């Protein structure tokens, strides 16, 4: 004769079970409230391209040298998603110890009070004094005379070229170097010759589902003409119609005349260049590792000075290490973070193998760097770097780049005329410029 479980017994058992579970939960609750001084160094970055491989090598180098520090590195999607996550994590008092930030975005993060100031005595203790960095970049990174970041590189927009195809097309000089294109005619002529050899395209510029690349080419040409996009901290839109139309018309002629593929997305342009279906690729220098792994005959050089004459300019940005604002002060944690950054700087050689132009003078001024080919070919791009204009909505991968890149992409695809694109850019940017800054 079995007695059925009565309701009271069920509730009693459930109550005991819940109490047992809650005592277990207390450790979870404890973990949620106390500060996260676990000795782990969290490092967030957005390096997914060819240079992501190099960064992994540098992180392994750090782990091998510093076995007492536990490094947890996370790679997040490039652009707005990365900076949104970094901002929200810092606001929620759960930031990583060290993070990567583009120079153009770092200033907005400082204005939003999301970064720790790097004090000179802390930096000096780890040997990272201002005189050890490229002066131009160090000065550009200061905000009100204070340092909030440590720049490691400048990464300009460059031109990759297939040496075999260019040889066949007669574009290389006697020393095997590419003859520079210093006019629109020279540029299109070279593309046409290359197209005859490849049977496909002359050069490739990704613009489908991609906004940064078309913006970078436009910004390079436009800055060579001396044009500006924004003024007064992003509150005014000062697009020069004549210069912008000239650049956009030139860019549109490249896809219209079949010299550049249409449509083509980022990965497609990489694949086309790696497979020899195109002789030139216009992209950031970070893709060098991809093509070295593909073992194809290529080299790199400065982005063509088509419009600049004696005023060379090319779109570039710099990667910097920043310390997000921590919920509590901890000297040991600060030292671990600075040790990590110093280790990254010491491995500048590996980072430069990823294609970047180094700013850490102990390496940049050494013979090692001058011998690195093709990386040293475009070292002078750092001096002609045209950074994105300042503004709360501007910076690498920001809404500014999305708006401009989309309009330029429409011109390249033939969906819009240069005039329509400029009007669209001006309209959308003026909306943002007129919005009071949330920072």
């Amino acid at each position, binding site marked *: 004769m079995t007695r059925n479980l009565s309701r009271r017994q069920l509730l009693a058992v459930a109550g005991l079970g819940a109490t047992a579970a809650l005592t277990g939960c207390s450790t979870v609750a404890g973990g949620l409230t106390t500060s996260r001084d676990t000795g782990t160094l969290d490092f967030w970055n957005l390096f997914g391209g060819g240079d992501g491989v190099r960064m992994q090598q540098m992180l392994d180098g750090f782990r091998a040298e510093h076995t007492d520090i536990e490094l947890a590195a996370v790679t997040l999607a490039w652009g707005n998603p990365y900076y949104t996550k970094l901002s*929200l994590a810092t606001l929620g008092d759960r930031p990583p110890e060290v993070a990567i930030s583009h120079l153009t975005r770092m200033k907005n993060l400082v204005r939003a009070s999301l970064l720790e100031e790097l004090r000179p005595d802390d930096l000096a203790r780890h040997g990272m004094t201002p005189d050890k960095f490229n002066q131009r970049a160090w000065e550009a990174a200061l905000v009100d005379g204070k340092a909030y970041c440590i720049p490691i590189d400048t990464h300009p927009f460059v031109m990759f070229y297939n040496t075999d195809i260019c040889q066949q097309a007669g574009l290389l000089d006697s020393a095997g170097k590419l003859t520079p294109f210093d006019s629109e005619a020279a540029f299109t002529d070279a593309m046409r010759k290359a197209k005859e050899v490849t049977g496909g395209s002359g050069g490739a510029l990704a613009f489908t*589902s991609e906004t940064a690349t078309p913006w970078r080419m436009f910004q390079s040409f436009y800055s060579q003409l001396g044009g500006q996009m924004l003024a007064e901290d992003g509150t005014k839109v000062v697009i020069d119609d004549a210069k912008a139309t000239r650049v956009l018309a030139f860019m549109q002629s490249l896809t219209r005349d079949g010299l550049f593929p249409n449509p083509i997305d980022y990965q*497609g342009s990489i694949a086309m260049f790696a497979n020899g279906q195109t002789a030139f690729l216009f992209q950031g220098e970070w893709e060098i590792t991809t093509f070295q792994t593909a073992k194809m005959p290529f080299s790199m050089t400065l982005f063509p000075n088509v419009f600049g004459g004696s005023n060379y300019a090319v779109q570039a940005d710099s990667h910097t290490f920043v310390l997000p604002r921590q919920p509590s002060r901890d000297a040991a944690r600060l030292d671990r973070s600075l040790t990590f950054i110093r280790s990254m700087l010491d491995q500048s050689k590996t980072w430069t193998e990823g294609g970047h132009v180094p700013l850490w003078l102990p390496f940049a001024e050494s013979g090692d760097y001058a011998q690195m080919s093709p990386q040293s070919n475009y070292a002078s791009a750092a001096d002609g770097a045209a950074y994105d204009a300042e503004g709360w909505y501007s910076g690498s991968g920001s809404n500014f780049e999305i708006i401009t890149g989309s309009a330029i992409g429409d011109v390249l695809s033939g969906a819009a005329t240069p005039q329509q694109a400029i009007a669209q850019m001006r309209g959308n940017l003026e909306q943002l410029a007129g919005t009071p800054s949330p920072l």
Partner: protein
Amino acid sequence: MSTQTSDQTDTDARRGIAPTAPRRGAAPRQGRPAAGFLAPFAVLYLLFVIGPALYGLVLSFTDASLVKPGLNGSAGFGNYAEALSSSDFWSSLWHTLWFTILTTPPLVILGFVLALLANRVARGRWFFRLAFFAPYILPSAVVALIWMWLYTPALGLLDTALTKVGMTAPSWLGDAAWAMPSLAITTVWWTLGFNFVLYLAGLQEIPRDLYEAAAMDGAGPWQQVRRITIPMLGRTTTLVAVLQVIASLKVFDQMYLMTGGGPNFATRSILQLVYDEGFTNYRVGYAAAVSMLFFLVVLAVSAVWFTLVRRQERVV
């Protein structure tokens, strides 16, 4: 159920037992235990749904920014004025409605057709149930990844397949005219299973003798579907349609993961606008205003459903 109690009173009457009158105090006496059982849920609901909604309403009248402390000053109706006069707001609302229009009819009709076909299968119905429902259990990131690879220009499976047949493939995610239909196709593949299962269950509740009687009266298969199946599935269709509309209005994942709202913001949905403005641009006050306006839209849709269901209940 109404039939059971009437049986009980009939039995009582036959036995000669007077039917017991309902106790007057029965309902109120259940009040306090009921409230006690509802309390945990009510607390959580207040804390995590009502509270934040009210806070969002308050925020929408301020200039609040994520990176500035406090409410950062009142903006009055400024945020609402900005939203209603902003082309970004109206275009993302239109994109959301266009997405709803593109996905709801196929999801309802295809779900019904596939359930009809699966219902006819005698053996192996489990296989079709599995095949059509399986995509529904995938997380949105997996679905986005699969379809982004399918849609890749020149290298993707769809492009190579179409080129083999001799057609030129459009730029699925890069052409403004094709981006939203491409996202719609992805969504239909992904969420069809849910409607399919609902319809299948509804089909199996239709009594067989209705079909047999109709067949004896000389109704062909198409007439049977039109005159018996579809009317009997009326409640299911309403449920499926309304669930579909509300889910489509809330779309975010596909846009964010597959096109990032592009090309040139052509696929940005209203929720993505809220995310972009509130979290990426730090303007939570403005984003709260946009979300309140969206809430009104969803409220309107729900009101339509409510009246529809009410009318159906009354008819039955």
